């Protein structure tokens, strides 16, 4: 097994002509796809991996400089695809990984046949002409809270992000993976994500994008999906699901899985 595979805990499941790469978002690991994977393994080759910095990866590999921008993560994705010698894939990215996939597709459009973005946002901060859902103050508070007491922050953030009760399985699951991250790494990644601004890059994305979005999402207002649709360089399509929270594939798999499967199976009709 290659060193990249090992470092990212790459798992290849199922078989098929097409390859699906499932990329998890902040505070989770590949287990966030557990509801989806069983539906894919029959027809596709499914590639799962952990982003560097996730609780399941070796913190020694986390290069704070490299991962100070989303490009670092994007190169990881390309690195994985190259090592696995995948020439083309359907990339399903959740949250930040959706943007990571988009960035990677700018560098290597040949590797991506389409990108399915779940709860993606090119920028989280509001500006005069853009609504990302967060004010600078919100973010500094968030980072401060992360710094002062990571555990308390996790248990507070998880239900907010998932949009469910403390006791729900999804919240428990998310807070588990969230708390698995090393606090300083989590903070660094969160800063990278929330400070990222990919708006200028969107027009360079030429790969078809399927934008899937919860109706209610703490991190990503619904208007952002529309913004992506308007600004992406290639074909795109938006589907807003009647779900709650930033991790719909974890919290409402019943609704999300059929939607995801549909978007993975069919392409945008031209």
């Amino acid at each position, binding site marked *: 097994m290659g*060193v*990249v595979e090992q*470092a990212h805990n790459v*798992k290849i*499941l199922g078989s098929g002509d097409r390859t699906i790469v499932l990329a998890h978002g902040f505070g989770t690991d*590949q*287990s966030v796809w*557990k*509801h989806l*994977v*069983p539906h894919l393994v029959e027809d596709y080759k499914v590639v*799962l991996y952990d982003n*560097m910095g996730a609780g399941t990866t070796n*913190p*020694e*590999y*986390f*290069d*704070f*400089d*490299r991962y*100070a*921008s989303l*490009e*670092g993560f*994007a*190169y*990881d994705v*390309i*690195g994985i695809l*190259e*090592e696995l010698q995948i020439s083309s894939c359907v990339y399903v990215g959740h949250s930040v990984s959706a943007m990571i996939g988009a*960035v990677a597709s*700018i*560098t290597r459009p040949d590797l991506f046949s389409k990108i399915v973005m779940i709860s993606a946002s090119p920028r989280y901060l509001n500006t005069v002409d853009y609504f990302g859902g967060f*004010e600078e*103050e*919100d973010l500094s*508070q968030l980072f*401060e*809270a992360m*710094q*002062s*007491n*990571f*555990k*308390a922050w996790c*248990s*507070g953030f998880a239900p907010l992000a998932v949009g469910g*009760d*403390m*006791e729900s*399985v999804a919240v428990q699951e998310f807070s588990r993976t969230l708390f*698995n991250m*090393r*606090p*300083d*790494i989590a*903070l660094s990644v969160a800063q990278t994500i929330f400070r990222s601004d990919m708006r200028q890059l969107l027009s360079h994305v030429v790969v078809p994008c399927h934008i899937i979005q919860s109706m209610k999402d*703490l991190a990503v207002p619904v208007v952002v999906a529309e913004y992506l649709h308007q600004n992406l360089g290639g074909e795109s399509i938006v589907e807003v699901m009647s779900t709650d929270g930033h991790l719909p594939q974890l919290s409402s798999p019943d609704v999300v899985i059929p939607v995801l499967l549909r978007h993975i199976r069919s392409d945008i009709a031209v």
Partner: protein
Amino acid sequence: MRAGLSTIQQTLTSEAATVLNNSIAEAGRRNHGQTTPLHVASTLLASPTGFLRQACIRSHPNSSHPLQCRALELCFSVALERLPTATSSPVVTEPPISNALTAALKRAQAHQRRGCPEQQQQPLLAVKVELEQLIISILDDPSVSRVMREASFSSPAVKAAIEQSLSNKVLVGNDINPTSLGMAGTTQVSLPVNRSLYLNPRLQHQQQQQEQQGKLRSNHSGHQRNDDVNRVIEIMTKPKKKNPILVGELEPETIRREILRRIENNEFVTDELNNFEVISIEKDFVSMADKSLVPIKIKELSDKLDTRIGSSDKKGVIIDLADLKWLVEQPPATIASVGRESVAEMARLVAKFVGKVWLIGTATCETYLRCQVYHPTMESDWDLQAVPITSRSPLTNMFPRMGANGGLGSSVQSFNRLNNFATTMNLDPNRKVSCCPKCSGGYEEELAKLKELENPRDEGKNCLPLWLQNAKTKDQSQIEDQEQVLKQKIQDLQKKWRDECFRIHPNYNRSLRLDRVVPMVVPLTGEYKPNMLLRQSQPGQQPWLQPVRTLQEALQPAQLPRLEPPRSPVGTDLVLGPKKTNDLTVKDLLGCISSEPQKGKFANTADADYFKRLLKGLMKKAWWQPEAASAIATTVTQCKVDTGSRGSVWLLFAGPDRVGKKKMASVLSEHITGTNPITIGLGSRRDNDETSTLFRGKTVLDRIVEAVRRNPSSVIVLSDIDEADMLVRGSIKRAMERGHLTDSHGREIRLGNVMFILTGNWSTANVDEHLADEQRLHSIATRDWKLKLTISKKRLKRLKRSANWLSGNDQSTRPRKESGMDLCLDLNLAIDYEEDRTDGSINSSNVTIEHEEDQHFAVTSVPHELLGPSHGAVVFKPVSFGNLRQEIEKTVRNALATIIDENITIEVEAGAVENILGGLWFGWTSLEEWAEHVLVPSLNQVNAGLLSQGEDMVVRVESDRDSVQVASCGDWLPSKIAVVVDGV
């Protein structure tokens, strides 16, 4: 110009000329009037394997980001687009070279001439500008460097990178090994060329290490040490000053060993350092008793080298000088002569075998300085280059053995162990139990058995990841249960063995504790700064000083109950509680919002203090709601702790007691902001104190937004939210969830640090009945009234004097008076007795009243949508005015009893009580305050007049409706009490 171009092209090498031609073509394609340095730079960047691109990547601090280069390309293409296009109608296919570019080319020529001394004498045209020189001079161009800056590249840095690689190229010759182009300080020395550009450098590092099969055993310090090693190697490959002396405290020793080891094993990829022989003079020289023999030894060495170099197939010899102190640490008598002789001898040796012999040595700063003082010519004679090696960390000073004789292996090992320790101690239940070897052996055995027992079925499915096995085959909760059970079992097992071990082998455990202390210290001083965060997040300032206990705690976080915000049980109870179990529900509610400041609930004493102060304030103003006060104090303190007193806080006050809620809110506001709360009524009722003029003609939502805007850190009471319309409630709910509020124009406002208090009834209590009571009280309180203290002789038979306002309700006062009468014969006991009795009666009536309430009061319908995101809900029980009256009477009585003679009977008239109640209810003064500031001073007057009167006196507190007094503004209680001495 055409002629100019061809002349210029003759001065370029073919490579450089191609670039120039391409640039001109590019300028033509873009229809530009001139070919500028920007075009050249853009062309240079465009070729993916281009030299410039590589240099850029190397020069950039985030060297692993090829996308940065893409950004650079984009910047250049934007800059090119900004250039003016040619205006002449026939399109120029080959735009002329701009002045700036001409200048750049001239610069390149000049550089090229200077760079090649042997060509200096040759005619101008024979000097061909190489591509590298072209790049360097292009980088010097101001327009290019501006564009580079825009893409966050520094052209001087890029230039430096190119120059660096040029100098390497000169050394290595024409065979440019890309790895040797790497700048010092990277770990790419032995990196295979075909590595993916996209690879995480840390992984490359890892891979390189894997490939080297543990030759470089260190993951961490090795990296740093590599830097130094590389620096030394660089020096050794220089033409001049090529003999490194590593100057530093302890590190140089390890680095010297590392270098020698690598040289001996031919581990360097750059082959100019391979195939060398190492001769160590350490043993000979250092152990030599008589230092005067050193020069002779050196001579012998020189002779030996003569034969060696002649015969052996080695490329050269490296003489390991070891620590230079043998040169200077000599008896003072001989140091001058012998030392000088040694230096001269060695200098001869170096001069004789130049290009064949290298020296390498170490020295402490002190030693090196002494060398320089005693032998000023040594540095140049020996061709030495001092390499300062900075100590990485105090670590080596603290554990000198590690650096000195442990060599790499041991220190690295300890680093590794430590590292594993730091990163895995958190959650892994399978971690080895901290026992002595014997006991942990036993533990392992049992653990293996246990696992076998638990997981026999998992064996066949190892091809799938663990979590997927779970997802596919079994119900989630079932799995979790099993995992939980297993974890629990493992922990039990660990605990069992730990206890056992502690009991049987106390000595081991004691020493173990010391062991643990040491590794905890190291990361603080070493390279493990990131991990400090982890540690800092634990409470306590010096976590490493409380070893075993913290460790055990750290082992079990998964089992620890999570710190639950107080709201969650409330939420579920309220939602689930059907009508039948109302009693239970209320009790549960009150139970979870505990009336006691729970021990250990607040992390530190500051919070506990805060809690106490708040509770005291709340109790003072609304003493009839002790449970609510406590709940509020708890919740607010908790919120303060959780949110770090930042962000908006949402509280729900449920229950029929409007006055109680209002008072609590104002106390809270006073406490938090020092001002009165802003009250915005959402229901039909309008309270007088609402600042209505400000908001007239605005929607409720706009009023809230306005209030928030004016006071971003105030307490805002949204009263009667249960009566608000859907729209308002929806907005508030969203605001609770998102932290910002949208006004009717769609503008967003952040809620800042506002504390919102939502009040509503949501209970089964009959509000109307309560309201009637309140209105009656209000009518009493607003009437002009006055209290008077009447002092009179005691009469055995007394008529009831006051009109009874309470007709039916007044069960307790009348009989008490009568019984008081009966007993006041024994005046010494009278007051005591009366008080006892009064207490008793309060208690008993309390019981009955509460009993009644339990039957018909429950908070049932707090909407979950509001409860969910709020920070806590507080239930206010319905008020029983009977209780309040008794409380007032008791307070008045106590206040009087403390100052007047025990012999004097105190009577509190029911009407007066009612008046006081009214005053308290609608005013802002607390009963205690009033008693202290008004009642007691008045009574002091009485006391003075009374002293002469002797026994058999009665002090009566009654309301005086005859005299008319204008109530002072805002104060509903009389500020004066008339004292009337009656019938004396």
